[in-house]
């Protein structure tokens, strides 16, 4: 110990201590930090982040800031996670066409590879919900009945009984769930895009999300049977009433006019 204490006022002592401290923190971090996917294929991942950063600078930075810190035109993207990017860009909502009450979905302009790169870059800004894998969103073995109950409890008040969508205040709206892929429904629940509340795994486990997806696909999917005939948009009594007036009563009045026009009277001419 003598040697150490003798050199404690050495000009380089501070540097050595600093080196030790850094090594200790680094080593501890390496030992205890969560092992992300980044470690597995580090080079591919960092390449994706690089590419994503370039795409980000072109398509997103004007509103979300050059480093994803957010501006007055767009929120910060730190911590939104790759799932949010995959949903927003994958459904065409982002990049937004114009600011407004809500950004509607539109044609997707990025390829899935580009979306993944963007997602990798945004995910690198801060940890957040991760894009789900296919097995996480596959509803094939889920409980449709339970999903319906969950849907009516958590989703129907904005999205309607069968996910036809509905209005919110000041021009905002809950979009129709028709034709939305299981992955995007999952991500929407996970991240809570725009005006939607989020349902993280802590409040709604993966299994329940699958149940909900299964229910939506069962009642508003491509193969949903319509035992009663044409559905009139599935919007309920308003479209039914309109139809009854225009086509029901309209047809009956047309028939009444026809019947009244054909009397038993002898033809005049």
């Amino acid at each position, binding site marked *: 110990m003598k040697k150490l204490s003798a050199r404690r006022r050495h000009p380089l002592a501070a540097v050595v201590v600093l080196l030790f401290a850094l090594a200790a923190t680094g080593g501890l971090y390496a030992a205890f930090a969560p092992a992300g996917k980044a470690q597995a294929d580090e080079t591919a991942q960092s390449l994706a982040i690089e590419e994503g950063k370039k795409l980000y600078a072109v398509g997103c930075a004007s509103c979300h800031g050059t480093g994803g810190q957010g501006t007055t035109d767009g929120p910060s993207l730190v911590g939104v996670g790759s799932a949010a990017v995959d949903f927003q860009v994958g459904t065409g909502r982002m990049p937004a066409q114009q600011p407004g*009450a809500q950004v509607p979905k539109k044609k997707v302009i990025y390829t899935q590879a580009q979306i993944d790169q963007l997602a990798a870059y945004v995910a690198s800004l801060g940890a957040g919900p991760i894009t789900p894998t296919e097995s996480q969103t596959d509803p094939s073995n889920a*409980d*449709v*009945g339970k999903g*319906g*109950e969950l849907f*009516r*409890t958590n989703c*129907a*008040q*904005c*999205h*309607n*009984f*069968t996910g*036809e*969508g*509905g*209005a919110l*205040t*000041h*021009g905002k*709206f*809950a979009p129709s769930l028709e034709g939305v892929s299981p992955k995007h429904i999952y991500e929407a629940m996970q991240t809570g895009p725009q005006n939607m509340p989020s349902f993280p795994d802590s409040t709604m486990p993966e299994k329940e999300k699958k149940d909900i997806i299964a*229910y939506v696909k*069962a*009642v508003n999917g491509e193969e949903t049977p*319509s*035992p*009663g*005939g*044409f*559905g*009139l948009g*599935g*919007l*309920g*009594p*308003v*479209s*039914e*009433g*309109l*139809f*009854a*007036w225009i*086509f*029901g*009563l309209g*047809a*009956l*009045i047309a*028939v*009444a*006019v026809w*019947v*009244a026009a054909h*009397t*038993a*009277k002898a033809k005049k001419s």
Partner: protein
Amino acid sequence: MSTATTTESKPQQKAPAGERVADWADGRLGIYSLAKANMRKIFPDHWSFMLGEICMYSFIIIILTGVYLTLFFHPSMNEVVYHGSYAPMHGIRMTEAYASTLDISFDVRGGLLIRQIHHWGALIFLAAMFVHMMRVFFTGAFRKPREVNWLFGFLLFVLGMFTGFTGYSLPDDLLSGTGVRFTQGAILSVPVVGTYISMFLFGGEFPGHDMVARFYSIHILLLPGIMLGLMVAHLILVFYHKHTQFAGPGRTNNNVVGMPLLPVYMAKAGGFFFLVFGIIAIIAAAFTINPVWALGPYRPDQVSTGAQPDWYMGFAEGLIRVMPGWEINLWGHTLVLGVFIPLTLFGVILAVIAVWPFLESWVTGDKREHHIAQRPRNNPTRTAFGVAWITVYFIGLVGGGNDLWATHFHLSLNAISWFVRIGFFAGPVLAFIITKRICLGLQRRDAEKVLHGRESGIIKRLPHGEFIEVHEPLDANKLHTLTAHEQYAPAEIGPAEDENGVTRKVGPAEKLRVKLSKGMYGEGNQIAKPTAEEYKEITSGHGHH
């Protein structure tokens, strides 16, 4: 055996079987005198006189299909776990009412079709009653002696609304349950007695276990029973008063020109019944109505967007949706004006159209019978009032569907609410003014046509170079039709003193009556129809213009 054959071998001595049956019935029921009086009953022909028939036929269709549904529906709120044919509801707890509705839809033969005929029929029934009522209103067919029948018809419409409401609430699905909850909220908003009525109606706290069973009795027994009675009374009165007819040559206040009930009208009406049934059945076979399986069972903790009532209750929904949430808290009691005012308006709006005939007869002071239906243009104030009323009704409907207007026309929900709030007051006023102008314009055109004839579209050049359009004079029939209507003179207060010099008392009611009368029939509120003298003066002289 042999005696039987001998009697049958001489049929020419006995009357035909049909006559014998009729004789038998006449001896017991007196049908000959009934038939004599009614078989040749005359009905005038006009398509708008068949609107009431649409109502009657759809009502019959609803009763018939409803009977079939009662065979399979379980009006019970006992909880069961569903394991029927519809997979997305497997394992869900629901009431027997909802489960049996699913069974009717998926397992009972023809159940879904009958259910849809029943429901579509109900929507069309109410719509037809609405249009029928408006036809009677706009043609003044409610005037003496038909005021009571007008009230019967009005009651049928209101009872129809509530029969419909109790009916679509029976399946106990999430949509209708939300509607019942909405209604219960409206009942609770009634000061003092609201809570008691709610507790009485639902047998305790909402939703309780009695609602479906009680609504069931009301829906299949109480209300349709009253309606059936009213409808029969309505028809008896139509027979008794005879049908109104539009003015025309040969048609007077004292006759009815048309076809006899038997055989012509019976054939037409019978055929029309099947046409109505056919159209409703086609619609029911091709278009879904109220897909209860997609809605889920009612649970008070769940709700869906797009929860609207059927159209006839829609304006009440709209009034509540756009009403600001005002409330007053006094001495520990809450008066929920945000719900109570719309609830009151619901009754007031309906009542206003019902009392119009009485207001009109009071203003005109006319005690004579009227059997000639008027053209709407010839009573501009009444027509304008009717259109204003429909405008209020329609604006209420817009409010009731405000979320769908918002999503389908990309509008802000709040903007629609404000539109409805302002439109509720401004809309009827605008509609009144515009309709009145249109009516007066049409009256002017009629007068013009009578005096100057029809514009032929032929331009003629006179020898001195002037261009004129040739007008074709109308024939006598058309002249009669266009000038057959009566025009009231506006009431006057009269001299302040009678012939003996005694000051006459004029009460405020009389003053109001005179004022209203001037507003309906005074200067600028109707165009004087051409007189025979005017016509002669114009047609006797120079032919042109």
